[in-house]
């Protein structure tokens, strides 16, 4: 109890609380600008943390990243511009909801379920960290390979409409992921001697192009005047969420658990967590056909998932000093500078600091509610701007975001090219989401496949040799075969009936 009191004394000081508030606002701003990621928010904060005590230093990072992941939902819902890659999974639903006048509900759901997911992840972090980190450490390339294959199989589930078109989109994404030299063999592919292509297609500009620029193009070329978006009824941002929580308790819990679990694995993280949760949600939903058309269910589950992953990533970081994602990679550096050396002994040597950090996690996720409410209200006027004014503004934002990610003009060119690709894809009813998934998972798939094959001296059965890998592999194959099995069973029954 004494430790908790000491920890509370470290947190509840005007200075620390001020830092939390300021970094919350900062994270909110960074997250809401597409192209600026939560990782970048953290990197920008680091020089400032040099001049802070350990607890406020870590508090600023915890708060800013939690906010950034939620804030990415704001442009996603209002402008179809996912603020961070973690928001791309359910952008379609959120945007359609806005168009039917339910922007408050969409953003309220994103906010409330982000907070719930974040709190769940923090709770797991506090209670089970050492035990869970031990399991995560057993994951090698074989396990990750199967995890990625599972993720790619999700593409089939997330696709609204025909699976063939979904597959085409996925293959486009996977192809784009092969460009450049960042592959296990270190060989340049499809770069044509171009320096920027050598670096591969940058993910963020491509994503902004596919979603936002294509939307701008469609608005500009639309022959029928666009219908005015009905204003949200102003029925409060939180009011509808109580019903959503009552309606989707399983989804909330499942999203939080999946997100935390994927967050713990070094190398997975919030982006993948959101996709997998969205797919799980669709797979088990009673209203599958509503997904991608402005349905809140997937948003609830994936929104909880990506924020819980952010907390989960801290588990291996604190217990072993292994980064769970790029944010915690930076955090580990800050911890060392502040004299809090991550490792199993952190809970013995420095318990008050650790419990203080845990308290910050709770605070950050709670403070998200009022601040998020303000941000949503503040962003609302965006919707009453006429398209002729709004679209150029969106384009400017896109350009800034595409440039900022690597400070290069190439980002803008890629964004524009992908905008055109996205436009033609949608005109032909090819969904965009699977292409994004392919681009996220493609490099991981290749990396983990090649390294596992090298380890197994070229023997494919190597993928089943390790127990966890074998289990995951069997599960994946089972999921693939399920539709076939069902078909066979159904056929069998039919023939019996006829006979």
């Amino acid at each position, binding site marked *: 109890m004494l430790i908790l009191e000491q920890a509370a004394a470290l947190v509840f000081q005007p200075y620390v609380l001020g830092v939390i508030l300021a970094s919350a606002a900062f994270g909110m701003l960074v997250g809401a600008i597409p192209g600026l990621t939560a990782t970048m928010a953290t990197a920008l904060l680091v020089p400032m943390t040099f001049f802070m005590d350990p607890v406020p230093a870590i508090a600023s990072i915890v708060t800013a990243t939690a906010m950034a992941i939620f804030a990415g939902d704001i442009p996603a819902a209002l402008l179809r511009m996912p603020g961070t890659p973690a928001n791309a999974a359910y952008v379609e639903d959120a945007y359609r909801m806005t168009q039917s006048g339910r922007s408050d509900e969409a953003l309220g759901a994103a906010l409330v379920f982000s907070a719930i997911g974040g709190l769940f992840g923090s709770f797991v972090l506090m209670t089970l960290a050492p035990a869970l980190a031990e399991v995560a450490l057993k994951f090698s390339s074989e396990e990750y390979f199967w995890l990625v294959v599972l993720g790619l199989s999700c593409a089939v589930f997330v696709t609204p409409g025909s699976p063939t078109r979904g597959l085409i989109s996925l293959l486009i994404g996977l192809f784009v992921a092969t460009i450049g030299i960042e592959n296990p*063999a*270190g060989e340049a592919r499809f770069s044509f001697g171009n320096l920027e292509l050598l670096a591969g297609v940058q993910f963020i500009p491509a994503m902004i192009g596919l979603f936002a620029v294509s939307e701008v193009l469609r608005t500009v070329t639309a022959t029928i005047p666009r219908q005015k978006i009905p204003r949200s009824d102003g029925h409060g941002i939180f009011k509808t969420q109580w019903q959503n929580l009552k309606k989707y308790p399983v989804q909330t819990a499942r999203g939080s658990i999946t997100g935390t679990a994927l967050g713990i694995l070094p190398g997975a993280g919030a982006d993948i967590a959101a996709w997998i949760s969205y797919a799980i949600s669709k797979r088990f939903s009673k209203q599958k056909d509503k997904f991608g058309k402005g349905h809140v269910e997937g948003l609830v589950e994936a929104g909880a998932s990506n924020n819980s992953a952010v907390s989960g990533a801290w588990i291996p970081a604190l217990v072993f000093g292994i980064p769970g994602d790029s944010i915690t990679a930076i955090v580990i550096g800050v911890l060392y500078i502040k004299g809090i050396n991550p490792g199993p002994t952190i809970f013995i040597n420095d318990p008050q600091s650790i419990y203080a950090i845990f308290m910050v996690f709770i605070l950050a996720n709670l403070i998200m509610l009022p601040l998020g409410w303000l941000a949503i209200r503040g962003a609302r006027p965006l919707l009453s701007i006429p398209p002729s004014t709004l679209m150029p503004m969106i384009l400017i934002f896109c350009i800034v975001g595409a440039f900022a990610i690597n400070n290069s003009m190439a980002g803008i060119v890629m964004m524009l090219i992908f905008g055109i690709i996205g436009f033609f894809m949608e005109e032909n009813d090819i969904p965009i989401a699977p292409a994004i998934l392919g681009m996220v998972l493609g490099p991981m798939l290749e990396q983990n496949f090649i390294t596992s094959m090298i380890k197994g001296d070229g023997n494919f059965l190597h993928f089943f040799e390790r127990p966890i890998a074998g289990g995951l592999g069997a599960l994946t194959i089972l999921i693939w075969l399920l539709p076939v099995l069902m078909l066979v069973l159904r056929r069998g029954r039919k023939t019996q009936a006829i006979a």
Partner: protein
Amino acid sequence: MLRRTLLCSALSLAAVAVATPVLAQSDYPNRPIQMIVPWGAGGGTDAVARIIGTLLQQELGVPVNVVNRTGGSGVVGHSAIATAKPDGYTIGVVTIEIDMMHWQGLTDLTYKDFDFLAMVNADPGGVMVSVDSPFKTLPELLTAIKEKPAGSLKASGTGQGGIWHLGLAGWMMSHGLKPDQVTWVPSQGAAPGITDMVAGGVDLVPTSLAEGRSMIDAKRVLPLGSMSPERQELFPDVPTLKEAVESDWTLAVWRTVAAPKGIPEDVATKLGAALEKAYNSEEYKKFMNERGYGMRWADAVETTRIVSEDDATLGKIMKEAGLAK
């Protein structure tokens, strides 16, 4: 009409900007300096660049903006530094990869395209195994590598042909073994390689001990040797390769601050002096010690010498290991 005038003046401005020769600038610096980092946020180079940037800012009195230009195994960022205007307002962190990428045929860029200002850090390579490994000392590990058929043991820690891949090949060759006696498993960097080793994916990781520090502290990773001429200050119990297995192989990765070729001499002098002050500051020492990075100072002349020597050594190994084009 207005538009045309605007266009004309924009064009003439651009022409002036191109035509102005880089003159000696006594009032340097009078505007923000951009510092390009060829590697991503979160990595070691980024961390070193950001602390150096903060300290330079205090010395020079103008903002020093750290900008990540990543991708293409570092080619993109290094090119951005080399092709910038040599006026002292664009500098960057040049890493040991500059001595490798041209041998691999990735670019024509070499160390000769830069004016080096200073070396601020060097980390010797190491040899690390998981605590679950059957090998507890370097001689035991080396015996197993020699006696088992080639390719039985696997190592990881960088991409294919990356610096630690060469470090391992060089070490093998120093014992008269084939450079690929231990199979290299490419990884996205030292941290994923070490994680994979702890998960049982590979047998050893030959990256710098600094990169394995948190796992060494957590008693998950066992450091067996250091590829340095003398023992490292931060790891006094880890023997050198010479002490443990009579190998003369040494390798250290370094980080230098450099400018595009042809910056004015007085600007270079001013930057060099500011860097030396930053290097000798308490903040820098504290930062480097806490992170476990090796302190290493070399002035412009010595840095250029080290960089050119490493270029020759690495080129030789890459050719023998079949990694050069």
